[in-house]
């Protein structure tokens, strides 16, 4: 209950922020943070809760973004159509990647997800006739959001988009929170702890893992659609393995299986290079070192540290 109130208070403050701040730059950084929060919270479901190593969150992000771009190009879809399409397309590929997880674990699964991530990236760069290759594809602004013919909201400026991204992030966190704290979330933890025992008490491990992969990929797909409309275009380099690595680092450093942890991780890792301009080029080196250090010295991430402090 207290967590819920804090969440509502933070979201309300964020919703009021554009009234107080004129600068587009801060809003821009926050939009990027919101998108990464969706990615990280999504990855937390499969990696933090269900314990399945996935280095393919960047690929699902890309599948969402390119679904939006291609469906706009070929069918003239607008945001209301691209958003669910991107979620569904990424979710289906999540299902596809979930299948190996039924037979493979640990290292083998990690390799498979890296191979998947690389294949998707290679297709985005090389299948030029379909994806536009290195140049990518254009995507329109969101523009007018209508419901049954009524115009709800017009998304033209960064400020407009800020509200849209904030709403999407709030919804994504809500969905992830519900999933993690429902029975399926508890079963994910059971699967992570001891798969054989989970089966022995009647947990459908197949279903549990597939749901985790689909939900995680679906959220990444939503983040991709947002990015595509925000940048008004897609290009493959946003969806390389580095993006997956960054999201993994966010989840680990924040603290896995906590929802709050990945949010903190996303904020920290997006804001840090913005604040420390000189750190910009060292960014990925730092992410790599953070991964090593966190695993060795701080397995619970920031959230684990805070919990320990509170208990002490």
């Amino acid at each position, binding site marked *: 209950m207290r967590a819920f109130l804090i969440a509502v208070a933070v979201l309300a403050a964020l919703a009021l922020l554009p009234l107080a701040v004129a600068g587009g730059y801060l809003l821009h950084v926050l939009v990027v943070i919101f998108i990464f929060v969706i990615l990280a919270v999504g990855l937390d479901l499969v990696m933090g809760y269900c314990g399945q190593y996935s280095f393919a969150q960047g690929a699902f992000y890309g599948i969402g973004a390119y679904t939006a771009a291609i469906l706009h190009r070929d069918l003239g879809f607008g945001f209301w159509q691209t958003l669910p399409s991107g979620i569904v397309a990424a979710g289906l590929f999540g299902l596809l990647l979930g299948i*190996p997880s039924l037979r493979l674990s640990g290292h083998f699964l*990690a*390799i498979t997800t890296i191979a*998947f991530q690389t294949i998707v990236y290679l297709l985005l760069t090389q299948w030029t006739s379909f994806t536009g290759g290195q140049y990518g594809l254009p995507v329109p602004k969101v523009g007018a959001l209508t419901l049954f013919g009524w115009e709800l909201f017009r998304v033209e400026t960064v400020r407009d988009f800020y509200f849209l991204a904030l709403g999407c992030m709030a919804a994504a966190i809500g969905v992830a929170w519900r999933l993690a704290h429902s029975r399926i979330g508890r079963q994910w933890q059971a699967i992570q702890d001891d798969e054989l025992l989970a089966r022995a008490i009647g947990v459908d491990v197949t279903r549990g893992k597939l749901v985790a992969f689909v939900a995680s990929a679906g959220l990444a797909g939503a983040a991709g659609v947002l990015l595509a409309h925000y940048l008004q275009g897609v290009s493959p380099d946003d969806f390389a393995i580095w993006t997956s*690595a960054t999201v993994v680092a966010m989840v680990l450093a924040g603290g896995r299986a906590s929802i709050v942890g990945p949010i903190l991780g996303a904020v920290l890792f997006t804001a840090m290079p913005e604040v420390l301009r000189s750190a910009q080029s060292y960014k990925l080196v730092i992410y*790599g070192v953070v991964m090593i250090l966190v695993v060795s010295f701080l397995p619970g991430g920031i959230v684990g540290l805070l919990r320990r402090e509170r208990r002490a």
Partner: protein
Amino acid sequence: MYTLDFALQILANGIVIGSVYVLVALGLTLIFGILGIVNFAHGEFYMLGAYFGITAAAIYGLSLFPLLLVGILGVVLVGLLSERLVFRPLAGGDMTSSIITSFGLAVALQNAALIAFGPQPKLLRTPWAQIPVEIGPVFMPLQRALIPVIALVLVVAVHVVLRHTWTGRSLRAMAQHGTLAQLYGVDVKRVAVVTFAVGAALAGGAGVLMSSVFLVQPTVGNMIALKAFTVVILGGMGNVYGAVSAGLFLGIAETFVAGYLTNTLRDIVGFALVVVVLLIRPQGLFGRAIDRA
């Protein structure tokens, strides 16, 4: 173009590339088989070997063999540091933690290389690149023709060490039964150090050799690591001789796909293969089925 000569030329190119895959995969499979670690940074060892070679060539103008030595020694140093700082703190614990740390190491090394060496692709040039060699209808520069020869020497050296030395015996004991080997007094720390040194040496050597064939960029390790994973999985995880056959197989298969079909398919073929193999036969094409019930 569909002549026998063309096919032979492609075969020769495939053997050159395949023997480099063998070297990288061999280290990867040794580290996995003996220590239970999948080193996701292995491609970065290869990449650093290439850069050490190119840098030494640019500064000192050395010929191939001294360059090879520089590349190997430099990467062995990096390998030992990685073992000490990244992997040893996890020893005895859950080895799946090494998935994240070695991935983190790969990210860090690759981007450090980007800062140190820049993004422009580079190529190793030694005088031997100008000397042509003709074997029947097959034609290639001496430097390239030496790659399979040197690879063969290195593989034989590893074989001899594994089969006929005390160190090799402790390594194999660890691979077959870690806990039992420890009970019989095998020094686990030393085994880990030697394994990483050998693995890094092979990858570093491969990097120097290949930097005269493929352009070198900081990201080149990604691709080569995935190729090596493909080889290791095809050959059976931890299976040294499986890695040799699978490495040559992948190299030849790729050059034939690139030569007869299209170059863009070349990379995707290998990964598609690995996903299929993992799903159907996780123990690999050349590996034996092990019932771990």
